[in-house]
């Protein structure tokens, strides 16, 4: 009797492990954490790319309904690819687009904008990458949609924007109104 209980216990442990591991296999390894949106700190200081003034993100996201915060760098190839999508967004008037220039060289960054056009209403620089970490970013490119009224992040995209993400982004902005 005791033997049977032991047997059943061991076998069921094995079976349970089997199914958990089986399920684990089908999971993707891409992980993005829940956005602890309200906790995002908008108060870090940063300098503008085109002037030496200092500002905070808080000041930047004030004037319209929504902001797109886009982290980019001239050395980042996917950033070139997504640039046209940002230019496309520029036409939306409820929106301002803020660029964070990540660990870049000033001359290269300006050249990049000159070549490809400027979708951003304002660009701040993040030479050490610390500001991006404060935002909870992983690297370049990365895009946040911020609700300016509530100062919360509605959505974030790790990696370059594409048609699909752009459509979703527009939907989010539409629905939030």
């Amino acid at each position: 009797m005791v033997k049977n209980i032991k047997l059943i216990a061991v076998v069921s442990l094995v079976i349970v492990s089997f199914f958990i591991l089986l399920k684990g296999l089908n999971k993707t390894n891409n992980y993005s954490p829940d956005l602890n949106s309200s906790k995002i700190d908008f108060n870090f200081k940063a300098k503008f790319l085109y002037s030496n003034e200092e500002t905070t993100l808080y000041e930047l996201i004030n004037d319209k309904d929504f902001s797109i915060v886009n982290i980019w760098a001239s050395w980042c190839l996917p950033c070139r690819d997504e640039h046209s999508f940002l230019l496309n967004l520029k036409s939306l008037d409820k929106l301002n687009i803020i660029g964070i220039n990540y660990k870049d060289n000033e001359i290269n960054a300006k050249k990049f904008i000159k070549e490809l056009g400027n979708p951003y209403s304002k660009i701040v620089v993040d030479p050490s990458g610390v500001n991006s970490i404060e935002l909870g970013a992983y690297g370049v490119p990365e895009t946040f949609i911020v609700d300016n009224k509530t100062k919360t992040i509605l959505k974030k995209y790790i990696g370059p924007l594409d048609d699909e993400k752009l459509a979703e982004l527009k939907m989010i902005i539409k629905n939030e109104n």
Partner: protein
Amino acid sequence: MLNQIGNYSLYIALLSSIIIIIQSPILLNRNNINISGRIFSLISIQSLMIIISFIALIIGFIISDFSNETVYNNSHTSKPLFYKISGTWGNHEGSLLLWLLVLSIFLLIFTITSKNLSNKYRILTLFFQEIIIAGFLLFILFTSNPFMSLFPIPNEGTGLNPILQDPALAIHPPILYLGYVGTSIIFSSSLAALISGSVNKTWAKHIKNWVLVSWIFLSIGILLGSIWAYYELGWGGFWFWDPVENVSLMPWFCLTALFHTILILEKREMFHSWAVILSITTFSLSMSGTFLVRSGILNSIHTFANDPSRGVFILCFLFILITLSIFIYFFYQNKIKNNFTKTYIVSKETAVLVNNLFMMFFLSVVLIGTVYPIFLEVVNNDKISVGPPFYHKLIVPFLVPFLIFMAIGPNLNWIKDKINKINLQQLLFFILSIIISFIFLKRVGISYLFSLPLFIASIFLFLITIKDFSVKKTNLSQKISHFGFSLFILSVLVNGVLAKEYSSNMRVGDERKFLNKTIKFESLKINENKNYQSLEANFKITDKNNSINLKPEVRVYDQPQTITSEADIESTLYSDNFLVFNILKNDGFYNVRYQIKPFMIWIWISIILISFGGILSIVKKNG
């Protein structure tokens, strides 16, 4: 052409497996005959076929036969010959073929060396072993065939991951596999012994060699992996509690426990069921390790490229084997002799049990730490990381009593020992180690007070294991291994406490002060090599007495394009000087990391000593 040869030989090997699996039960019922020549020749044919297919793959790599998909994906004509060959097992498909090769050769050796044992036991072992071999063959042929043809034939391969182009890593996997696969023989033979009712002295004596062989290979395999991580990953550490490392450590704990148990079984006819359970567990852990590494379920730096169907296959195979062995165990449990003689609390038997208890604890910490995040993610959708702090917090407090037990245990007598006999001498050593550790820690700094108990315990063990060389009672191989272990713990501790590190961004010509040393970035030059370009820096490190030059490199491999940093290490008996540098985006600056790692070399030496004890034990008995 090679592809066909490889493929067909694998099919023939599979066929032999199936024939043996079908025939064995029939042979079992004819008790009077010895293993028929037929089965033996089948096993030989099978090994031969697997050897042929393995050689076919190696040749494919050597002549860069890109009609083979595995070669195409993992090789390149510009690679040095040595890495072309080691590239054979540097990928998923080839490494499985190597597993299989070792499996079949081990089985052949088993068949030859077990001639004086009972027929039933031998046939049953063959039977289980062939199930494992057949499983691997099916796995290889249907999910990871190394002989897939490509058409049209590409002109050039895509190259081997440069990180794998390293001598230590070229031989690390084969050695590790020898250890893993050795456990399969232990598994099969323990099930066979269980069914044939021969879990006894004779079995213990026979299987002890296999336990030792697997244990030695596993130890050396782990050592090579650590050495590689130390200088190649550019991290300066040698153990990261990375899931893939953990996976090799788990069967090691289990084998260590098993070895001690087998000794008792051999000498005193005790702990029969426990030995069988450990044998089954050891192999299950080796297999689970393969599953975890190959399926891509883990987040680790070493994982192979993954494909879900492979994971599902190994998981099912693993599940079947484990369930099968559990049922066999419970069904035949009564066949195990249970002439349980009472053990006394102060005796060698108890000491071995305590050793096992600690081994199982360490094993459970590592096992739970490794799989818990996977389980939590599936059940709860929460993702957590379990890393070094977790393992340190759980293992270190238990290490202290473990080391003390390890010092006392081997000196106990069989059956029953007196408590008071131990005392005086050992007490003296204990007091001595308290004094030594106290003085040492005081010199280093009081902030390490928390490690005082650990220091006392490890110095105590160190002193006792040295003293034990003068005692005649125990055997030499044990003394060496135990001394090696105490040396290991002590070196790791001292290394951890005394290591110094300096990190800075430097340009060529810069000079930095660190402790009493000056680090000067003297020059930088570009070297062209056969399959990579390297940026070789020259650093001069000067202190009062002497100066050394360290020349770390950053390599840019072209096939596939990858950047690696090669540390330069100056090893002395006293300490290692470790320097590594990386390219930064800021023009002209390089991130430089300089470390002084005391007693580093003793960590390697001690592991070699531990393994050497095992080798000595095999040689002595057979010579």
